[in-house]
């Protein structure tokens, strides 16, 4: 399902102009990372995708639906959104109930709900915690529950707002696996993150925001090598990319493997 954002501007009631004429198109099945400095407008942008916020100017279309004409409840069939703060999202007594809440609300039949809940538990590796109260879990596991409850809604588009925050190496790997699986299933995934290394390793397309605008948008390799523009929005290139730039490698590299191949070539030259 196509996402079309045309000339989107948004002003909060307190007067803050958080988005300025943003235009973007995201094709079905794309994996996109959104990066940029604190306050750049990333969360504000993605909250427009499921109608939590409506444009002050311009428009947002999810498939053939203009978000101004559809309720948040309706849009939830097309776009799943995992909040930056999971506590804004969780409210039931057990992990399994929490995950079942979304698909039940969408009116799926019981058997399908069961399947979706099991699938989400498995993808997030939450099986052992199915009967636990989400509030007895650490914040990092609560975030995983929030992710699982969106996975279970089986929407064509999923939006993750800073899923890597505070996660350890194993959880970041698990997130990467979830994103790869969603890609395999043909889902559109939009992920906000400050973990630029994670971004380099898992996303083909990167959108860089700053001051309510899109500063850069393109293939990860092109975008993440532009150190000067990234610095304007308080972003460093990925660790490996910085190393490649410092050593003057001919190409922009994003992973250790790519770096070593390019470096070996450079040594031989």
């Amino acid at each position: 399902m196509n996402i079309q954002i045309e000339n989107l501007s948004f002003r909060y009631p307190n007067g803050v102009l958080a988005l300025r004429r943003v235009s973007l198109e995201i094709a079905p099945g794309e994996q996109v990372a959104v990066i940029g400095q604190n306050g750049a407008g990333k969360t504000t942008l993605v909250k427009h995708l499921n109608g939590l916020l409506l444009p002050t100017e311009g428009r947002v279309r999810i498939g053939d639906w203009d978000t101004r004409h559809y309720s948040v409840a309706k849009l939830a069939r097309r776009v799943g959104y995992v909040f930056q703060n999971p506590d804004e999202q969780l409210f039931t007594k057990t992990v399994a109930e929490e995950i079942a809440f979304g698909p039940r609300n969408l009116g799926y039949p019981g058997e399908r709900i069961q399947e979706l809940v099991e699938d989400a538990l498995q993808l997030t590796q939450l099986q052992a915690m199915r009967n636990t109260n989400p509030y007895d879990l650490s914040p990092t596991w609560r975030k995983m529950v929030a992710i699982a409850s969106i996975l279970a809604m089986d929407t064509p588009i999923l939006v993750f707002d800073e899923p890597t925050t505070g996660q350890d190496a194993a959880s970041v790997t698990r997130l990467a696996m979830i994103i790869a699986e969603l890609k395999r299933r043909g889902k559109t995934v939009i992920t906000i993150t400050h973990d630029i290394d994670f971004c380099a390793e898992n996303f083909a397309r990167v959108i860089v925001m700053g001051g309510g605008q899109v500063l850069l948008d393109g293939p990860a390799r092109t975008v993440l090598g532009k150190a000067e523009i990234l610095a304007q929005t308080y972003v460093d290139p990925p660790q490996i990319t910085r190393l490649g730039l410092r050593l003057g490698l001919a190409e922009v590299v994003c992973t250790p493997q790519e770096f070593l191949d390019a470096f070996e070539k450079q040594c031989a030259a």
Partner: protein
Amino acid sequence: MPIVKLQQVTYHYPFTEKPALQDINLEVEEGEFVAVIGPNGAGKSTLCYTLAGFIPHFYKGELKGIVEVDGVLVQDSDLSDWVLKVGLVFQNPFNQISGAKYTVFEEVAFGLENSGVPRSEIIRRVEEVLQMTGIADLADRSPYSLSGGQQQRVALASILVMQPKVLVLDEPTSQMDPIGTREVFGVIRQMAEQGMTVVMAEHKVEWIAQFADRVIALWEGKIYLEGKPHEVLTDERLVEKGFGVSRYTTTARLALPRGLWQKERPLPVTLEEAVAGFSALRNARRKQG
């Protein structure tokens, strides 16, 4: 004389069988910057709560061993006295905003207002920390109408402004942008230089290597490794146990069998170390070739 002293500290949250901290021995010198790393659930937050007196004064459960700061045992102190000595920045900034204030400026000034500091001094100190944490332009905004990273900066500012003797930070940069993160590490280093004692739970090893004096690696509630940042962060045992390591370290490990990293050279953790190591190898190769 260490300012922080933990001896054989073991702690169980209420109704739990497995201790969240087990046999922790830790001494921190005045002005030292100690980083605490560990996978999720390792006990980083629990250690932070213990240092900050929330264990045992807020979280009940069973605390054994000695927790002493500046010569006073935690059991012999009220939480209200303790927090003036040991400031804690919570893992989740959404929990730290007091809710009592209308602007970011007042929110940050809140703790000082009841402490007898003169108004002019309060204003000076608040302006200074707003600058240091990169939120001077948000002074007049409501603390609720902020982005996640901006709220995290407010939470940090409202503790820094109190100038506690011991500063405990639980993943204080988790929602901050990359360059902001580096700047905050720099600010905290500067605080330590000025004599503040710092204990910081963090995952970002590149900056820990550059800014901290010592690293404690926690695993399943115990101190698993401890030492100089460079030694701990390149220790192979970290990888086995699921600790995060720097991409530079990983790259050099992969480079070794390909002859792209010199065997005798220590593994890199920071960009500068990686640049130096790979440049040296390139020069050596070119000389040979």
